[in-house]
């Protein structure tokens, strides 16, 4: 069918002669320097001298690998049933959050803005907030509105707590509607801190509203937190594992259904999420299990302090050992044995790792991403005999650096690694040229540096804009390890095959 239609996309179209010629002709206007000079300069940017200059840079960020707080807050809000993310600030931010998340998940993203303009900047955004609440309730009928701020509202110092009280007084906001709110200026932290702030606020708001007193350990239930997680498949995998234990649990902040709904023929604003009434009950659980740490600091702190919860948290459990630890902890908290089926699964995945080990062993890798993801990736790479070399974490801090360094020291494969927190993808580019590696691991944003360095990019993390469905496959647990292993080894094989001389273009690998 498509052959008959002879559909040519722009890539092929613009390789046609006439377009190539057109481009050549246009050079006259745009190239004040010679091709030799261009090549020479390009080569210069790959030198050590340039790298030093690049790393001496303090003021400007070139190609960042992080997003801002309210983006994370929107994701946290969508982890709860019939909850509308409501962003207090000027309208553009909201449009960005919606398209950013939509491009990653390929799903519609409900979120509204108070659309502050100049007058709000001068007189404060209270009117916008109150009118906005009234409008969005009428239009979208949420059961909870999760309000976060943008930097604009923070700079003028809008007082959300007072504004919301006024909204209730005016009757714009029904007395019984929960409205958690979080201050999420983008001039501090990143999307993971915003996620944390909003999740904490949701838990606190719903809990306080219930008027209960916590009875930790009263129920033999687990609380499970996945954090800022771009993989809807991770939620399914977590449920599958807990189900195999026969554990009862509450996932606090489950955005998987909102970001992975079916094409049923009827569009809805809300597809699922943690039921609101489950939140107060969660305070009575036997313990809390979190598979991210850096994106859940405040939330876990709140659960420990106010709910008196027993909390266990690790970074994204990628690979065998991290999953082992996770399962041991589920076993301890739930009082149930690790199921036989999971033990068998582990053996099978270890077998798969052995099948593939020859192709991954000794591969040098560079990686960029969020701190929790990177800790998991470092651990998994070390297990695979891959050597993490450059680790860039735009939103990492001292604690992350220490943890990463400690983990790297635990294996001879980590000996060469350097950890760069607070750096960006332009730093990464210098690292790739000065100390070349075989593979890069990270979000879609890393593809440009990887292409220049002529190495394949293994897409892991957030955001992934340019590949479909990766987020539907879990990367946590043994099953996740297998998925990542499959992605890694087959990419390596693809590259080998592309580069193979005829005599080693083998059928069996």
């Amino acid at each position, binding site marked *: 069918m498509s052959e008959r*239609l002879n559909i040519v996309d*722009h890539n092929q179209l613009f390789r046609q002669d006439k377009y190539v010629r057109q481009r050549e002709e246009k050079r006259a206007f745009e190239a004040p320097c010679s091709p030799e000079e261009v090549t020479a300069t390009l080569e210069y940017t790959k030198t050590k001298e340039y790298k030093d200059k690049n790393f001496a840079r303090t003021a400007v960020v070139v190609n*960042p690998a992080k997003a801002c707080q309210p983006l994370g807050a929107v994701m946290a809000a969508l982890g709860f049933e019939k909850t509308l993310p409501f962003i207090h600030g000027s309208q553009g931010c909201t449009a960005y959050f*919606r398209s950013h998340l939509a491009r990653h998940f390929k799903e519609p993203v409900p979120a509204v803005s108070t659309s502050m303009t100049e007058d709000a900047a001068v007189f404060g955004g209270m009117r*916008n907030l109150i009118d906005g609440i009234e409008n969005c309730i009428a239009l979208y009928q949420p059961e909870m509105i999760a309000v976060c701020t943008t930097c604009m509202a923070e700079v003028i110092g809008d007082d959300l707590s007072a504004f919301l009280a006024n909204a209730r007084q005016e009757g714009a906001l029904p007395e019984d509607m929960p409205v958690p709110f979080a201050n999420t200026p983008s*001039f501090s932290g990143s999307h993971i801190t915003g996620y944390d702030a909003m999740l904490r606020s949701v838990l606190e708001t719903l809990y306080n509203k219930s008027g209960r007193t916590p009875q930790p350990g009263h129920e033999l239930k687990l609380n499970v937190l996945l954090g800022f997680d771009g993989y809807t498949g991770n939620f399914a995998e977590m449920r599958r594992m807990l189900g195999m234990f026969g554990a009862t649990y509450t996932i606090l902040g489950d955005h998987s259904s909102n970001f992975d709904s079916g094409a049923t023929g009827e569009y809805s604003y809300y597809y699922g999420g943690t039921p609101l009434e489950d939140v107060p009950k969660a305070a009575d659980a036997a313990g809390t299990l979190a598979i991210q740490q850096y994106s859940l600091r405040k939330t876990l702190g709140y659960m420990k302090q106010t709910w008196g919860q027993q909390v266990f948290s690790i970074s994204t459990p990628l690979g065998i050992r991290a999953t082992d630890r996770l399962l041991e902890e589920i076993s301890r908290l739930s009082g149930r044995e690790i199921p036989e089926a999971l033990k068998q699964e582990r053996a099978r995945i270890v077998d798969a790792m052995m099948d593939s080990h020859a192709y991954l062993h000794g591969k040098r890798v560079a990686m960029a991403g969020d701190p929790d993801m990177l800790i998991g990736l470092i651990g998994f790479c070390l297990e695979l005999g891959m050597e993490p070399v450059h680790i860039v974490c735009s939103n990492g801090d001292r604690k992350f650096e220490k943890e990463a360094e400690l983990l790297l020291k635990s294996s001879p494969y980590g000996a060469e690694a350097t950890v760069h927190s607070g750096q960006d993808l332009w730093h990464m580019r210098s690292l790739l040229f000065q100390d070349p590696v075989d593979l890069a691991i990270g979000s879609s944003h890393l593809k440009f540096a990887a292409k220049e360095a002529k190495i394949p990019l293994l897409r892991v993390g957030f955001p992934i804009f340019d590949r479909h469905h990766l987020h539907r496959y879990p990367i946590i647990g043994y099953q996740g390890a297998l998925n990542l292993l499959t992605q890694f080894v087959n990419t390596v094989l693809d590259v080998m095959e592309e580069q193979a001389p005829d005599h080693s273009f083998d059928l069996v690998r």
Partner: protein
Amino acid sequence: MEPAVSNGRLEVSCGKKIPKSTPCPRPVPGEASGGCSFDGAQITLIPIADAAHLVHGPIACLGNSWESRGSLSSGPELSAYGFTTDLGEQDIIFGSEQKLHESIRYIVSRFAPPAVFVYTTCVTALTGEDIEGVCKAESEQLGTPIIPVNSPGFVGSKNLGTRLAGDVLFQHIIGSTEPEQTTSHDINLIGEYNIAGEMWHIERLMQQAGMSILSRITGDGRFREVGWAHRAKANMVVCSRALLGLAVQMERKYGIPYFEGSFYGAKETSYSLRQMAYLTGDRDVERRVDKLAAREEMRLSLELEPYRKQLKGKRAVLYTGGVKSWSVITALQELGIKVVGVGTNKSTAEDVSRIADRIGDDAEYIPEGGARQILKTVRSRKADMVIAGGRNMYMALKEQIPFVDINQERHKAYAGYDGLLSLAKQLVHTLQHPVWELTAKLAPWEEETEFAD
């Protein structure tokens, strides 16, 4: 029949009538909203491919938006880099002008761009950074134009930002350089962003008719090239809503006549080329355009034949902004598609009257956004497809409605004669996909079973 707008446009251009400038509508709090002025300004200026674009603000504005435009460049790619000052709390409290100075110097010394655009954001506008002062000082110091773009998000909508970017072009850039040579057939394209390479199609058509583009404003544009736009013989405003003001200003200051036109659909394309040729004042060029249009329309009509057959009588809901709201209608009508619903939320009063000229009262007008409204129209008017931008795509797919992306992220060029063919193919392609057979039927277990006696 000539499109009804032509007379009106010409009068405007001849100075008889100043177009009414209605303020951009204010966004309503609590609704799902579109982009902000900062976004609009970026959209207009980022296609200037050899310049560096530095966002002065916290991470939000750049961190969530860089590398997401479909404007193609035939050469330099510096504008695809994400530069930001990534302000933190300390910067907000103590000021960040020093950081901006350093950032500009770093970019100029390492990337040697012909110019740096520095974008104000909500935060730096509120804290009162003297961005113009910094830019001026650094321009003088470095000998590179450093251009302040004062369009923080809170001043209003995306459209307003585009207008403000037009002001920046007019005040700081146009008239700053001189072309090496000019001809009497030099045209500027204004508001054409080279999405999926559309501008290149148009350029080829113009060349065939003996006209050339003097300045691309701004799709596949170069900084110096925009600077000599004041030497053109005529301006064509391709996206009217946003940059019409620029054309008006250029007419007043440089006496360059302008017209509004579109390249969506064969008729509009021919009309636009004719209008250009008319404004060059060269009879020979006009004759060449006539020949070209006749030849292309004939060829196209033959090539479109099989697609027209498949598209005839199909019904579409069109939800797109500004100029596309009316110009795409023509294109769809040429393919035999009936537009049964059309979004007007980003259209001017003039745009709306052009929509009315084309479809009359036959279609539903959707003034306000929101998925529900679009879907309601699709259902009530029994539409076969939605033609809109990416933000509405997934919503349509949830409802199992065939969807064609017409906005900035698409990878197909729909402008010009070949573009219409490409659009026809895309529409047929979309409508014929076997997945619609799946969605048209219930799953077997949902069907009511008829039991035989």
